[in-house]
C-alpha cells in the first residue's frame, strides 16, 4: 500500500462491503477501532455503573441504618448486595481500569494504537453485552412486579446469590433465573477481559518505541502488563466454574448438586483461584497510577523503580497462591490452613515494599499538592489501613472470628475505595486534561477529595468495630438487642458523606468539560511519553516514532542533558491507520441476545432457546465476516504544524 491519493476515501473490504472509515457521529463511535475512543467509552460505562452500584449500596445503607427496618425486603436486599458487588467489580472498577489501559498504554509506549485494534473494539462491545445481560434482569424483575412475567424459579430474577455465588445456592433448587443472568453475564465479561488482556500483552511486548526497554517502561504500563497476565491466567478458572454451573443449571449435570454427588466446595476453590488474583487485577493498575502521580508531583523519579516493578510481579505470582485464605472457615485442615496463612503473610512483603518506596519517592522531593497528588497520598494512607486488616486476616485463627463479618467488609472497602477508587479518581484528575484537552480550575476538586476521605473513614472505620462486635455480613437487618444500631447509623451517615464527595467529583468533571481553559500538552510538567502528544491526542497519537534515551524520558527530554533528549524516527512519512469495522459490535449484540435469551429460556419463556441459538449464529456470523473483511487500513499525513513537541 502506498501512502498517496486515496488516503481519505472509504475502502471496500474483501467481501465487497463498504468499511465505515471516516464516518462521523454515532457511526464513528460504534465502529471505531481507535484506542482513545474505546478508552473513553470504557470510562463512561465504568462511571455510569459506578453510579448504579452506588445507588444500590445507598439503598442497602438506608435499610441498615436502624435495627429491624423493612425499608426494602430481604429478597431485594440480597439482590442489591449481589448486584452492588458484581457491578462495582466487573462493571465499575474493571472498565475504568480498562479505560486507562486503553487510553494511556499506547501513548506511554509511543505506539499509534494497540496491536489488534478490532479485537480492542470487540472487547469493548462484548463487555457492554455482559453488562447488559447482568442488568437487564432488573427490567424483568420490574415485569414480575407488574405481574407481566412469571418465570420458573419465581421472584428470584435479579441475581441474589452474592458476587461469589457459592454453590449450591446457585443451583436450580435454591435460586431462580437470577443465577442464569449472573452466569451468562459474567461469562461474557470474562471473554471481554481475556481478549483485552491478550491485546495489551502483545502491544506492550511488541510495540514499544525504539529505546523504550522494559526497564524504562512507565510503571503504569508495567502494571498493565502484569495485570493482563493475571487476567489470562485467572479468568479461565472462573470460566470453567461458570461453565460447570451453567451445565448444572441447564443440562442437569452434577458438579455442584449435592444430592447427585456434587461437591460444592470445588466451586469455592475455582472461584477464589480466579477471585483472589482478581483483587490484584484491580489493585495493581491502581498502584501503577499512584506510581505515575507521585513522581510527577514530587518532581523526582520513583524511588527504587526496579524493586517496585519486581514487587508488582511478585504480588502477581503470589496472588495465585493465597486463594484459600478466603476459605479458612471451610475446614481445609491444619496443614492447608497453615500454608495459606503463611503465604498470605508473605504477600505483605512486596506490598510493603511498594509503600516504603512511595514514601521514598516523596522523601527529598518538592511536593506540589495538586488534586491528583492528594488522591495519591490519601491512597497510601488508606491502602495501608486496608493492608493492616489484611495482615490480621492472614492469622487464620483470628480470621475465624472476622470471616464473613463487617470487619471483612471494612477491610476490603479500605482497599477498594481507599485504594482502587482513590487511585482511579486520582488518575482521572491526572489524565483528564490529556483526554479532554481542558484544564482543571477552582477548588471543588479539593473539597471533593476531602469529603471522600472523611466519608470513607466514617463509613468503613466503624465497620471494623461492628464486625468484631459480632455483626455478620449480608444480613438484611438485625435485632435491636444486638446493640449494632448506633454504629450502623454512623456508617450510614458516613456513606452519605462519601456519596456526597463522589457526587462532587462528578460535578467537577462536568464543569471541566464545559470549561474554556485548555490544558496544553503538558500541564503538570510530567515525566512520561503521553505528555508529549497533543491534548487531546490526535487520532494517530505521534506524528513520528519517538526514540527513547532514558527512563522518565520526557522529563529528561525537558530538563536533562542533551544526550538524554528524545529523538524522532520516520518524520514526515504517512501514517498507516487501521480500518473501522461493524463486526465487533455485531458480535457484542449476538452475545447480548444469546445471554439474555438463554437466561429467559431457563425461566421457561417460550421460543427463547431458539432466540439464544440465533444469538450464537449472530456471533458466528460476525466472527466470519470480521475474519474475511481483511485488515484494511489507510494512510494519513499529519500536518507538521500541529505535530509533537520538539522544544
Amino acid at each position, binding site marked *: 500500500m502506498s501512502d498517496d491519493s486515496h488516503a481519505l476515501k472509504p475502502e471496500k473490504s474483501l467481501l465487497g462491503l463498504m468499511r465505515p472509515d471516516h464516518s462521523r457521529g454515532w457511526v464513528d463511535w460504534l465502529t471505531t477501532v481507535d484506542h482513545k475512543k474505546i478508552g473513553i467509552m470504557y470510562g463512561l460505562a465504568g462511571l455510569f455503573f459506578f453510579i448504579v452500584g452506588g445507588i444500590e449500596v445507598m439503598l442497602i445503607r438506608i435499610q441498615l441504618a436502624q435495627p429491624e427496618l423493612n425499608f426494602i425486603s430481604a429478597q431485594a436486599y*440480597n439482590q442489591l448486595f449481589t448486584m452492588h458487588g458484581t457491578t462495582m467489580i466487573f462493571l465499575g472498577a474493571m472498565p475504568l481500569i480498562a479505560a486507562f489501559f486503553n487510553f494511556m498504554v499506547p501513548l506511554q509506549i509511543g505506539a499509534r494504537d494497540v496491536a489488534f485494534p478490532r479485537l480492542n473494539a470487540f472487547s469493548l462491545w462484548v463487555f457492554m453485552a455482559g453488562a447488559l445481560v447482568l442488568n437487564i434482569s432488573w427490567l424483568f424483575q420490574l415485569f414480575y412486579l407488574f405481574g407481566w412475567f412469571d418465570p420458573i424459579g419465581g421472584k428470584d430474577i435479579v441475581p441474589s446469590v452474592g458476587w461469589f455465588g457459592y454453590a449450591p445456592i446457585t443451583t436450580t433448587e435454591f435460586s431462580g433465573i437470577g443465577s442464569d443472568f449472573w452466569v451468562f453475564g459474567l461469562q461474557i465479561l470474562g471473554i471481554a477481559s481475556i481478549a483485552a488482556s491478550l491485546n495489551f500483552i502483545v502491544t506492550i511486548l511488541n510495540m514499544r518505541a525504539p529505546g523504550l526497554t522494559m526497564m524504562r517502561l512507565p510503571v503504569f504500563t508495567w502494571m498493565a502488563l502484569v495485570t493482563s497476565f493475571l487476567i489470562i491466567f485467572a479468568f479461565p478458572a472462573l470460566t470453567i466454574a461458570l461453565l460447570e454451573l451453567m451445565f448444572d443449571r441447564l443440562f442437569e449435570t452434577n458438579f455442584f448438586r449435592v444430592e447427585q454427588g456434587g461437591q460444592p466446595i470445588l466451586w469455592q476453590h475455582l472461584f477464589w483461584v480466579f477471585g483472589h488474583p482478581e483483587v490484584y487485577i484491580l489493585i495493581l493498575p491502581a498502584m501503577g497510577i499512584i506510581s505515575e502521580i507521585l513522581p510527577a508531583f514530587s518532581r523526582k523519579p520513583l524511588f527504587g523503580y526496579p524493586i517496585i516493578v519486581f514487587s508488582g510481579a511478585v504480588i502477581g505470582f503470589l496472588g495465585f497462591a493465597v486463594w484459600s485464605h478466603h476459605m479458612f472457615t471451610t475446614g481445609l485442615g491444619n496443614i492447608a490452613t497453615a500454608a495459606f496463612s503463611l503465604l498470605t503473610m508473605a504477600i505483605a512483603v512486596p506490598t510493603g515494599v511498594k509503600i516504603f518506596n512511595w514514601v521514598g519517592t516523596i522523601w527529598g522531593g518538592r511536593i506540589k499538592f495538586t488534586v491528583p497528588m492528594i488522591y495519591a497520598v490519601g491512597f497510601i494512607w488508606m491502602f495501608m489501613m486496608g493492608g493492616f486488616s489484611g495482615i490480621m486476616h492472614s492469622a487464620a485463627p*483470628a480470621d475465624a472470628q472476622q470471616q464473613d463479618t463487617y470487619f471483612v467488609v471494612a477491610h476490603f472497602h479500605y482497599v477498594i475505595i481507599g485504594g482502587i477508587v482513590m487511585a482511579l479518581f486520582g488518575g482521572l484528575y491526572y489524565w483528564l486534561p490529556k483526554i479532554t484537552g481542558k484544564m482543571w480550575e477552582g477548588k471543588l476538586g479539593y473539597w471533593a477529595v476531602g469529603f471522600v476521605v472523611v466519608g470513607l473513614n466514617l463509613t468503613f472505620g466503624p465497620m471494623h468495630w461492628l464486625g468484631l462486635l459480632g455483626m455478620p455480613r449480608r444480613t438484611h437487618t438485625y435485632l435491636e438487642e444486638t446493640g449494632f444500631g448506633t454504629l450502623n447509623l454512623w456508617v450510614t451517615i458516613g456513606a452519605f458523606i462519601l456519596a456526597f464527595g463522589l457526587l462532587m467529583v462528578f460535578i467537577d468533571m462536568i464543569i471541566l468539560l464545559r470549561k474554556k481553559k485548555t490544558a496544553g500538552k503538558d500541564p503538570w510538567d510530567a515525566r512520561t511519553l503521553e505528555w508529549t502528544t497533543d491534548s487531546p491526542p490526535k487520532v494517530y497519537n505521534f506524528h513520528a516514532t519517538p526514540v527513547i534515551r532514558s527512563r522518565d524520558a520526557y522529563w529528561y527530554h525537558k530538563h536533562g542533558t542533551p544526550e538524554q533528549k528524545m529523538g524522532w524516527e520516520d518524520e514526515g512519512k504517512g501514517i498507516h491507520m487501521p480500518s473501522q469495522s461493524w463486526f465487533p459490535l455485531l458480535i457484542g449484540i449476538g452475545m447480548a441476545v444469546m445471554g439474555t435469551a438463554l437466561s429467559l429460556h431457563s425461566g421457561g419463556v417460550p421460543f427463547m432457546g431458539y432466540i439464544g441459538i440465533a444469538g450464537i449464529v449472530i456471533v458466528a456470523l460476525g466472527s466470519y465476516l470480521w475474519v474475511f473483511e481483511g485488515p484494511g487500513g489507510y494512510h494519513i499525513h499529519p500536518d507538521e504544524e500541529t505535530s509533537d513537541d520538539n522544544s
Partner: protein
Amino acid sequence: MNRILKGMGKFLGLIGILLLAGCDYQSRQSTFDPKGPVALRQLELFNLTVWVCTFIFIFVGGALAYAVWKYRERKSDDPDFKPKQSHGNPLVEIGLIVASILLLVVIAIPTLDAIWYTHDTPDDEASKLGAWYQGELSEGAETEVLEVVVYGLQWWWEFQYPQLGITTANELIIPVGKVVHVELRSRDVLHSFWLPKIAGKVDTIPGRANSMWIQADEEGHYYGQCAEYCGESHAYMLFRADALSNEDFHKWVEHQKTPPKAPDGGDDWGAWISSVNANPDSVKGDDVLEGASLFYSKTCVVCHAIQGAGIAGIGGPDLTHVASRKTLAAGWLDNRKETNDESGDAEIDPEIQLENLTRWIYESENIKPGNRMYIGSVGVQNGLNTLKGTPNEITEEEARKIAIFLQNLK
C-alpha cells in the same frame, strides 16, 4: 487550600473522639469478651496482630507524614525548583524488606500454634463423658467427650446429641467447663456456625462433615448467628447456647428424654388419638385439644416430630419440648421477659410465648421471608401459603389454638 486542610483536620479529630467513645460499648456477640478457650486464643492472636500493625503504622505513617510535611512546596518556593533526581537506595530497601519479614515472623509463629490449638479437639480426661456424666450413654461414649452434631438448615439449626439420644433445635445446651466436640453438617446450602464469645466460625457444607471444639468457661446464655450467606432469610438465622452446670445439664437431658404429656393430660398419645377418632366432637371447647387436632389436620405433622407421640415428620424442627425453649423462629423471636439477658436467668413469659407462637404460625412469612413452613420445600411438600384461599387455610384463631397446644409441650 490550607484552610480546607485545617477544617478537615478538626473534623477528623471530632470523629476520632466519637469513634473512641464508640469503643466502649459491648454487644452480646462481641469477640472482645471471650468466654471460652478457643475464643480467648483467637482474641489473643488478634491483639498481637493489632500491636504489630500499630508499630508498623507509627513507623511508616510517621515517615509518610514527616515527608509530606517537610518536602511540601511552600508559597515562597520557586515553582520550577527541581529536586535531586535520585533513584533509590538498595541498602535501605533491603533493610526494610528484612525488617518486614521479621515482623511477620512475630505473627506467624503464634498463628501456627493457634491453628492446631483451635482446631484439634483436646484430649482432656476431665471432659470425657465417663468422668462426669452419670446418665445413660451410647456404647463406647465413656471415653469420648460430649459430641454435638450441628445441622445448618434454611433457616434454622438442628442439634443432635448422638451419645445421649437427643435431638433439639435452635438452642444448644452444653455443660460448662467441658470440652465439646462439634460436627458440622448441612442438608441444603452452606451455613456457618458462629458463637462469637465461645469460638470463631466453621462452615456447614452439604455432603461433608466439618468439625470444631468448643468450651464455655462460664454458665450463661450465649448468642450466635449463621455467618455464611444462605439465601433469603440468612439474617434471621440466629441461635442460642446455654452453658449449664453439671447438675442442670443432667436435669436438662433427663427432661429431654421424657416425652411430653398427651393433650388430654395423660401419658398415652395413642389412646388419646383413638378417642378423638372415635368421637371427633370431644375436642370442642378445649383450646389445647382443638389445637392438637388442628396440628394433625393442618399437616403440621408432615414436617415436625414430637418424640413419644408417634409424630415423626421430617424437614422441620423437632417440637418435642418446644415450649421449654427460650426462643422461636431460630432465635428471632425471644420468649423471655428480658430479651437481652446474658446470665440465662430470664424466665420464659407464657404470654409472650403464646403471642410469638401464634404470630409465627399465622404469619411466618412476615417474620422470616421465604421460610419453608410458608413456601414449602422444593419437590418435597407444600407450604402454608398453598392452603391460602382453600377451606384448609389457617385462621388466626386456629393458629392461636395450635400455639396453646404447643405451649403444652414443655
